[in-house]
C-alpha cells in the first residue's frame, strides 16, 4: 500500500487540531477539475469531523496539461509567507474556471497583499522550489493523479465523494480508537 514518505511537519499548511486522531493529506492541482470538485467536499468533511480531523494540503501541479497550475501553487505559497495561504487556496479553487495570472494578483489585492510583489515572485519563480519539493515528495509517496488523498499516512484509493471519504475516515478513527492506550 502506498504511504506518505514525507511526514506532516512545520513546513506544511495545516488546518485543524494537531492532536487530531486522523490526518487527511491532499496532493492537489489548482487547475484540476477533480480537485475543484473535491474542494467543497473536503470542507464538508472537515466540518463533519471537527476536532477529530486535521487537514494538510500539498501541491502536485500537472504543468504540462494545466498551464496555470504552477503559478497558482506559487501564488498560494506567496499567500502562505504572508499568513494568507488558506485564503489564497480557497480563492483559487472558488475561481478555478477563470484561473489566470490576473486572477491571482486580483486575489492577492483582495487579501490586502501586494499585487506587484506577487507578480515579481511569479516572474522569478521564488516559490517554485517549495512547490517542486512537495511534488517530488508526492511522487515518492505514490501520488498517481490529482487529487490524491492520504488518510493517516496511507493512500486512499476510493472515490473522492463526501460519503466515501467520511467512511474511510471513520474506519481510520475506529482503528485509532481500538489501539491500546499508551501509558505514561
Amino acid at each position, binding site marked *: 500500500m502506498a504511504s506518505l514518505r514525507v511526514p506532516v511537519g512545520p513546513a506544511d499548511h495545516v488546518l485543524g487540531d494537531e492532536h487530531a486522531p486522523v490526518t487527511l493529506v491532499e496532493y492537489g492541482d489548482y487547475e484540476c*477539475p477533480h480537485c475543484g470538485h473535491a474542494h467543497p467536499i473536503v470542507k464538508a468533511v472537515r466540518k463533519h469531523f471537527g476536532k477529530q480531523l486535521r487537514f494538510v494540503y500539498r501541491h502536485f501541479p*500537472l504543468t504540462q*496539461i494545466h498551464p496555470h497550475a504552477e503559478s497558482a501553487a506559487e501564488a498560494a505559497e506567496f499567500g502562505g509567507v504572508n499568513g494568507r495561504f488558506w485564503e489564497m487556496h480557497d480563492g483559487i479553487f472558488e475561481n478555478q474556471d477563470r484561473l489566470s495570472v490576473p486572477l491571482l494578483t486580483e486575489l492577492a489585492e483582495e487579501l490586502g497583499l501586494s499585487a506587484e510583489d506577487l507578480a515579481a515572485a511569479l516572474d522569478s519563480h521564488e516559490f517554485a522550489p517549495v512547490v517542486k519539493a512537495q*511534488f517530488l515528495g508526492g*511522487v515518492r509517496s505514490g501520488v498517481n493523479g490529482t*487529487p490524491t488523498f492520504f488518510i493517516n499516512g496511507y493512500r486512499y484509493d476510493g472515490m473522492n465523494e463526501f460519503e466515501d471519504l467520511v467512511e474511510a475516515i471513520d474506519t481510520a478513527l475506529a482503528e485509532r480508537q481500538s489501539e491500546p492506550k499508551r501509558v505514561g
Partner: protein
Amino acid sequence: MARILAPGTTAPDFTLPVTPDQSLSLRDLRGQPVVLAFYPADWSPVCGDQMALYNEVLPEFQKYKAEVLGISVDGPWCHAAFARDRHLHFPLLSDFEPKGALARAYGAYRDKEGVCERALFVIDEKGVIFWSYLSPVAVNPGAEGILEALENLEKKGQSHGQLESSRRAS
C-alpha cells in the same frame, strides 16, 4: 491476471511504430536503462492519467538516463493526437499490428478486452529485465516503483564497478 516477465529475463526485442512514419527498436537503446509502461488505452481521464504523470516526472527519470516508452494497442495516429493533446515529451509505441504481440511477449496482454495490462518494466543497460510490476488495471501505479527500481539499478551498477576495480587492484 497475466503473468508478466520476471526480473532476470532477457527483455524481448521489438521494433514498433513510434510515429506514423518512424519506428523504434529496443536494441537501439542498449547502454541505458529503459522503462516500458504498458497501459490499456490513450485518452483516459486527464488528471489521473498515467502518461501525464510520467510526463511530469520525466526530469526525474532522466536523472538516471532512463528512456521512458509508453505502449498501448492504439495506432500511431491516435498516439500522435494523444501526445499532442497532453504535451507528452516521451515516445508512445503502437502495439497495433499484429495487435498486442509485444504485450503478449511480456505477459502483459488482456485477451478479454484486447488491451495491454498496466504493467511496468525497467530494463537494464544490457537488455535484461531488472524490475517488473503488474498493477490492477484500474489503478494507475504511479511513478514511485519505477524511480526506486532505477535507483537500485544505479546502486547495483556502482557496487559492480567497485567490485571490479577492487578485483583489478588485488
